[in-house]
C-alpha cells in the first residue's frame, strides 16, 4: 500500500500528462489513481474512516481518464441514473459545485453512495476504460470521484426546490436509504411528509449497521438534517405494526399514502446445534451494539459488548466484512471469516474483502460450520467446520458449495457472529394482512411503481428486495415516490 504522500506526488506527476485534445488511448494511459487510506496496522486501533478520499490533484487526474463516451454505458449501471460523464467533466474543469449539482439531480446522498455503493458491479462495470484495459479495477474511479465531489462541496449542497403545498399527507415508515430517497422526492412535489422510525436514531442501516470506519455518522446526520430542512417531519420511537398500524395511519391519522421502507430486519440463523450459546451473535446485534449503541467507546457507552479473543464470522457479504473488521477494532486477536464458497463468489464488495484481509482477517473458504461447541459458562468454545468443494452453478449463477463427507475438523473460538442475511420482519405483515407477501415474507410490489396490493401503500428497499444495497433501496424509494406523486395528483 502506498502512503498518501506518494500517491499525491504520483498524481502531480500525472497532471503533467494531461493536455487538451487527448485521444482515448492517451486518456486510458493515465494511471488509475488509488485512494489514500489509513495504514491497516493503525486503523484497526481506531474507528475512524479507513479510506481518506482523493485529494484535488488525484480527483482531477482520475476525472481526466474518463473518455466522455457519447453512449454513457456507465449510466446504465447506476440504479438511480446519475449523469456520470457530465459530473466527471465538471471535475476536469475544477467546477465542483457544478459537479455536485449534476449528481443531485439524481441522488440525494452522494457522500454516502460514493462510499458504500458496489461500483464494480454497477457503473464501473460498464466503463469503457475498464473494458479497454480488460480490468474492471482499472475503470474510472466513479465512486471515488462522487465521494470527492460530495466531501469537497459538503457545505454548499443546496436544498431542492419544493412545490407549493398540496395538502396531501404521506407517511414514510423507516428512515433508511429507501425511505430517505422516497421522502425527499415526495416532499419536492409539495406533499406533507412524516418519517416514522422505531429506534432512537434516524438513518436505519446507515446508523445501526454500517460501521463508523466505513461511513462516518456525521455524514449520515448531515444528510438527515437536509430532510428536516426540507420540511420533512422526523418522528422516532414509532414502531409501525405496534405503536400504529398502517390502517390506523391511513384511516385515523389522515395519511393519504404510505411508503414502507422498514428493511429486512430479522436476522437469519443457521439452525445448527449450539447456535443459542451465549457468545453467538447475529451480525445485526454485534453491529448495533457497536454502531448505534456506541459500545466501541467503552469510556462512555452504557451498552456492553462481549470481550472476544478468537472470533468466527459466518458469511461472505458486506455485513460479514463489517462485523469481522469491527471485531478486530474491539480487540479480537484473530478473526476468521468462514464462507462456504471461494473468495470470488463472496457477495461482499471487492474493496471490503481487500480491506478485511489487509487488516488481518483470515478467510476460511470452502468451509461450512456444522456445530458450535460450548464451554462450562455456556459461551462458545469451538466450531466444527466441514470442508466443501464447488459443484454446479446454482440459481444465483454461482457455483454451489458441496459438503465433503468426513472432512469435519474443529477450530477453537470464543465468539461466533452469524452473518448469513436477514428475513423480513413480521410485524407489519401480521397487522396488515391486506399486503401480499411472498414465501420469504417480502412484500410483493409492482416492479415499475413499487405499489403493494393495498391501495395507497408502496414499499421498497430490503423489505421488498431481501438483503440488497443502499443504492438499490434508494432506486426503489425514488420509483415509489414517482408513483405516489402520480397517485396523489389523481386522488381527490
Amino acid at each position, binding site marked *: 500500500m502506498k502512503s498518501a504522500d506518494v500517491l499525491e506526488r504520483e498524481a502531480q506527476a500525472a497532471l503533467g500528462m494531461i493536455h487538451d485534445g487527448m485521444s482515448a488511448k492517451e486518456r486510458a494511459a493515465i494511471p488509475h489513481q488509488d485512494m489514500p487510506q489509513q495504514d491497516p496496522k493503525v486503523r484497526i486501533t481506531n474507528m475512524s474512516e479507513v479510506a481518506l478520499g482523493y485529494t484535488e490533484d488525484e480527483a482531477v487526474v482520475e476525472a481526466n481518464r474518463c473518455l466522455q463516451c457519447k453512449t454513457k454505458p456507465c449510466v446504465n449501471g447506476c440504479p438511480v441514473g446519475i449523469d456520470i460523464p457530465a459530473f466527471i467533466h465538471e471535475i476536469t474543469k475544477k467546477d465542483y459545485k457544478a459537479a455536485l449539482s449534476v449528481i443531485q439531480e439524481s441522488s440525494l446522498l452522494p457522500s454516502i453512495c460514493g462510499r458504500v455503493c458496489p461500483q464494480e458491479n454497477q457503473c464501473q462495470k460498464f466503463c469503457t476504460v475498464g473494458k479497454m484495459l480488460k480490468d474492471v479495477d482499472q475503470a474510472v474511479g466513479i465512486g471515488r470521484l462522487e465521494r470527492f465531489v460530495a466531501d469537497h462541496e459538503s457545505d454548499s449542497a443546496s436544498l431542492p426546490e419544493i412545490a407549493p403545498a398540496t395538502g396531501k399527507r404521506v407517511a414514510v415508515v423507516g428512515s433508511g436509504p429507501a425511505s430517505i430517497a422516497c421522502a425527499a422526492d415526495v416532499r419536492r412535489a409539495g406533499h406533507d411528509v412524516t418519517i416514522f422510525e422505531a429506534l432512537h436514531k434516524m438513518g436505519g442501516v446507515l446508523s445501526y449497521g454500517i460501521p463508523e470506519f466505513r461511513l462516518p455518522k456525521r455524514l449520515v446526520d448531515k444528510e438527515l438534517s437536509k430532510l428536516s430542512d426540507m420540511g420533512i417531519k422526523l418522528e422516532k420511537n414509532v414502531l409501525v405494526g405496534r*405503536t400504529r398500524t398502517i390502517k390506523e395511519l391511513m384511516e385515523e391519522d389522515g395519511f393519504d399514502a404510505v411508503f414502507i421502507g422498514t428493511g429486512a430486519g430479522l*436476522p437469519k440463523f443457521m439452525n445448527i446445534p449450539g447456535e443459542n450459546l451465549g457468545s453467538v451473535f447475529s451480525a445485526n446485534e454485534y453491529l448495533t451494539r457497536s454502531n448505534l449503541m456506541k459500545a466501541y467507546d467503552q469510556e462512555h457507552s452504557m451498552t456492553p459488548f462481549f470481550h472476544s479473543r478468537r472470533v468466527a464470522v459466518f458469511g461472505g457479504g458486506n455485513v460479514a466484512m463489517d462485523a469481522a473488521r469491527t471485531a478486530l477494532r474491539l480487540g479480537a486477536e484473530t478473526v476468521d471469516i468462514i464462507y462456504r464458497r471461494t473468495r470470488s463468489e463472496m457477495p461482499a464488495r471487492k474493496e471490503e474483502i481487500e480491506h478485511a484481509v489487509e487488516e488481518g482477517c483470515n478467510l476460511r473458504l470452502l468451509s461450512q460450520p456444522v456445530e458450535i461447541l460450548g464451554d462450562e459458562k455456556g459461551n462458545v468454545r469451538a466450531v466444527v467446520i466441514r470442508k466443501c468443494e464447488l459443484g454446479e452453478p446454482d440459481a444465483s449463477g454461482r457455483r454451489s458449495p458441496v459438503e465433503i463427507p468426513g472432512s469435519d475438523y474443529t477450530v477453537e473460538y470464543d465468539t461466533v457472529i452469524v452473518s448469513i442475511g436477514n428475513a423480513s420482519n413480521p410485524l407489519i405483515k401480521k397487522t396488515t394482512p391486506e399486503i401480499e407477501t411472498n414465501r420469504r415474507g417480502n412484500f410483493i410490489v409492482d416492479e415499475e411503481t413499487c405499489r403493494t396490493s393495498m391501495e395507497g401503500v408502496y414499499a421498497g428497499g430490503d423489505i421488498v428486495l431481501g438483503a440488497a444495497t443502499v443504492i438499490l433501496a434508494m432506486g426503489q424509494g425514488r420509483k415509489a415516490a414517482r408513483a405516489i406523486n402520480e397517485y396523489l395528483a389523481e386522488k381527490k
Partner: protein
Amino acid sequence: MYRIVSKEQFSPEVFSMEIEAPMIARERKAGQFVIIQKGGDFNERVPLTIADADEEKGTITIVFQRVGASTYLLAEMNVGDYIENVLGPLGSPTHIENFGRVVCVGGGIGVAPLFPIAQALKNAGNDVKIIIGARTKDLIIEEAKMRTIDPDLTIITDDGSYGLKGVVTEPLKALLEKGDVDQVVAIGPGIMMKFCTKTAAEFNTPIIVSLNTIMIDGTGMCGGCRVSVGGETKFVCVDGPEFDGHLVDWDNMLMRQRTYKDQEAEANHRCRLEGAGR
C-alpha cells in the same frame, strides 16, 4: 420527549414512574412492554414491562429495580424530567380468556407487570388467586393493588420478614395439590419461572411465563433476545414476551442472560463510584 409525571420509591431499590406517552397508553394491552433510552448517544436501551396505563391522562407506569448502571441513572430522574426515548407498546399482548381458576405468581418486581394481566384475567371472568414473593419485606410491592383482585392473596419472603417464609413454589404447589387450578401465570426472575414451571408440570397444569431477556432494539432486528421454545428459536421481542413455560429451554435462557454479567458488574461498580456522572 416523554415527561415523568410522578415517581414513587417502593423500597430502597424499587421505583415506579408514571410517564406521559399518550400513543402507548392508548394502544397497550396487558403483557406488553416498552424500551426506554434516557437520551443521547451513549445510553443503553432498557426493556421494561408496562405495569399500568391511564388512557385519559395519556400516561404509562413502569416499575423497575435498580440493578445496573442504566436503571441506576433512570432512578436518578425526577418528576418533570424528560426521557428522550420510549418505544412501545412492544411484544404480543397476553392471551386473555376465561380459563376458569387461575393462579398468578409474581416474584420481586415481576409483580408490577403481573397486575394488568391479573386484572384482565379477572375481568374475563376467571377466579384469580395471587401469590407474591420476594427476597425480603422491602421488595414486596403493589400489595394493595393486588388485593383488589384477590383479597386473600398469599405473601411469601425468603427470609420470612413478611408473610410466609419460603419460596413461591411452595404455596403454588399447595394450590395445585388441591386440584383446583386450570392455568398458572408466572412473572419474575428467570429462576423463579423455571421452578414454577417445574411445579406446574408435576400437576400437568398449563403455565404462561413472561421472559425478560437481553434485548437491544425490541423490534426483531438484533436477535439478542432469542430463546429456544419447543425446540424452535423464538424472539422474545416479537414472538413473546409470553410463552408456554413448559416449552421454554430454561437452562439455555438463564445461561444467555449471563452473557454480559462480568462486564455489567464492572460497569455498575464504576457507575456508583462516579456517582452516575455520565
